[in-house]
């Protein structure tokens, strides 16, 4: 299937390993991406908070680009997804959309309201199908206990996220099992990673990060997986600080969703850019590779 690919800022900035892994896995999955190189940042909710019209205009511009191509937008970030879904809901109001379109007119964009927005995770389950994903597994993640970490905006608010599919809050578990791994059940899976307050209240942000990792670890996780690179910035990038803020040892490697899929498809950790991680997945993966 053809998709308008919106990688988001972090995949092109602080998480180059994510961008690289997505590239590797899309082809075998039969997803043909056309990257929206000229799309702006979604504003991550921060712009919406400041000036909703501005956020809606920038996202409306992106939606119009995809609409022109006749493709759904594929995101790889929970925060981008949530921000876009909220903007798109507001842009269903015709009168308001006309005001936004006025701002886009100089560039000759006009959004009609018809672009679908889907996270890669949703596409895998709903469009590609887990059966096909399972068929591509070369090295099942057998024996690997993987804790899913969704990122708030893939599960809340359900009024926006569900779109008639309340089981979306179990997709990661289902995918992990399709890849041969064992999904860890723990309360933190759908909680906040703490990233949104990390520059405003660093201690609180780090405590949230640390509590979720500790929770996953207590429930037996070898690694965690997240479909949100902002969560990754905290869970991986600041895990050391989070452990200190909480006063407990952590040391749980955090994979981006496409990296976990890539591993099961037979790509190597270095192909998947894992040398960029701050918590090195090497030891855990070596243990699992030996077990296979």
């Amino acid at each position, binding site marked *: 299937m053809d998709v308008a690919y919106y990688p988001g*800022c*972090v995949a092109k*900035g602080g*998480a*180059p390993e994510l961008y690289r892994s997505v590239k590797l896995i899309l082809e075998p999955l039969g997803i043909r991406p056309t990257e929206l190189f*000229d*799309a*702006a*940042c979604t*504003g*991550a*909710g*921060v*712009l*919406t*908070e400041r*000036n*909703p*019209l*501005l956020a809606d205009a*920038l996202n409306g511009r992106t939606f119009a680009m995809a609409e022109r191509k006749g493709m759904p937008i594929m995101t790889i970030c929970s925060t981008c997804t949530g921000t876009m879904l*909220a903007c798109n*809901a*507001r842009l*269903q*109001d015709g009168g*308001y959309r006309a005001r936004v379109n006025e*701002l886009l007119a*100089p*560039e000759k964009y006009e959004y009609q309201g018809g672009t*679908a*927005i889907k996270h890669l995770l949703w596409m895998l389950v709903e469009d590609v199908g887990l059966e096909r994903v399972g068929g591509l597994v070369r090295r099942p993640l057998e024996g690997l206990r993987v804790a899913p970490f969704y990122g*708030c*905006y893939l599960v*809340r*608010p*359900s*009024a*926006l996220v569900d*779109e*008639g599919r309340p089981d979306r809050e179990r997709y990661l578990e289902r995918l992990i099992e399709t890849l041969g791994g064992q999904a860890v059940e723990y*309360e933190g899976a759908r*909680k*906040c990673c703490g990233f*949104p*307050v990390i*520059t*405003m*209240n*660093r201690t*609180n*942000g780090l405590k*949230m990060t640390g*509590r979720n990792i500790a929770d996953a670890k207590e429930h037996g996780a070898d690694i965690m997986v997240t479909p949100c690179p902002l969560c990754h910035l905290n869970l991986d*990038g*600041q895990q*050391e600080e989070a452990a200190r803020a909480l006063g407990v040892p952590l040391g749980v490697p955090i994979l981006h969703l496409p990296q976990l899929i890539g591993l099961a498809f037979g790509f190597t950790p270095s192909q998947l850019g894992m040398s*960029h*991680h*701050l918590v090195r997945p090497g030891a855990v993966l070596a243990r699992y590779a030996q077990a296979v």
Partner: protein
Amino acid sequence: MDVTLSVQRHNPDANPATWWQDYTVTVPDHATVLDALLAVRDEQDESLTVRCSCRSHICGSCVMRIDGRSALGCKTKVAEALRRGGAEGRVRVQPAGNMAVLKDLAVDLEGFFGKVRAVQPWLQPVGPEPEREYLVPNEAMLRVRDAMACILCGACVSACNSLEVDDRFLGPAALAKAWRFTEDPRDGHDRDRLEFLSSVPGGIWDCTHCFACVEVCPKDVKPMERIIELRRRAMDAGFTDNNGARHSQAFRDTIAHSGWLDETKVAVRSVRGPDELLDWVGVGARSFLRGKVPLRHKAIPGALRVTAIVSAAERTAAGSARGGAAAGAAPHGAPGHGPGSGGGSGA
């Protein structure tokens, strides 16, 4: 219908430990979780403490966690809980979160009401009193009506992710109340309220945007969206000497400049000064060594267009807003005012 309730019990006066106790009861198909708990208390175990009064989601007494989700016991049907949770005809019931347990499902609400009181939830008009009642335009009250529907049940507080790590946070219910008074045309103290809310420890900038309060509120108050509006109004009113407002400004500036986010710049510009920046040196250095700090931030091809949109949207917002607030930019009647609302399908 038979249901097994696994109830997390606690009697801190007698025993510091909590324990789980299972009760199986027969209830009618339309029974709520509260009905089932009351049946247990009547028929099997009168030591089980449950708080309730109206049994029809009006009084706000019966908040609890049902299969981990904060909710009113009297608004959650047993059948619905079984369908959702589904583990072998069993429903897990715990006391509300983020509040101390007094006994079983009764929690201490002192802190909760203390925070509501802290935002001074009463009208404080200025100027001479009118001869008769205060006259208010209908639209102004329609705007605050949803927030006025709050029944102070504490479900939002029970679910709040920020409160889990910081007890000082005023929390969703109190902040939604505060919003309601800053929006009321009869109140004359918006500025003082906004100043207090943006500077007090645990104020508006400590919300972590987790949407938990929006998700669980039985009255659709959407506390997080009120907090978002409070932040916007506080910034517009000039209360910008805080990391939240600095972060917002830095975010806007990098997008206006290159079309997308320059994470390093945003991080550096969001903190108060060199002392706070020190906290970031460790993670900055480690990220740099692992190739996670881009050396160059290249603008998107249409960056100039984005800059133009930013200016135009800001002009419109400033022109159409009440008191210069950008809040006027999106129509209040439009579906989903605020980032979270709107039940519309994105597809």
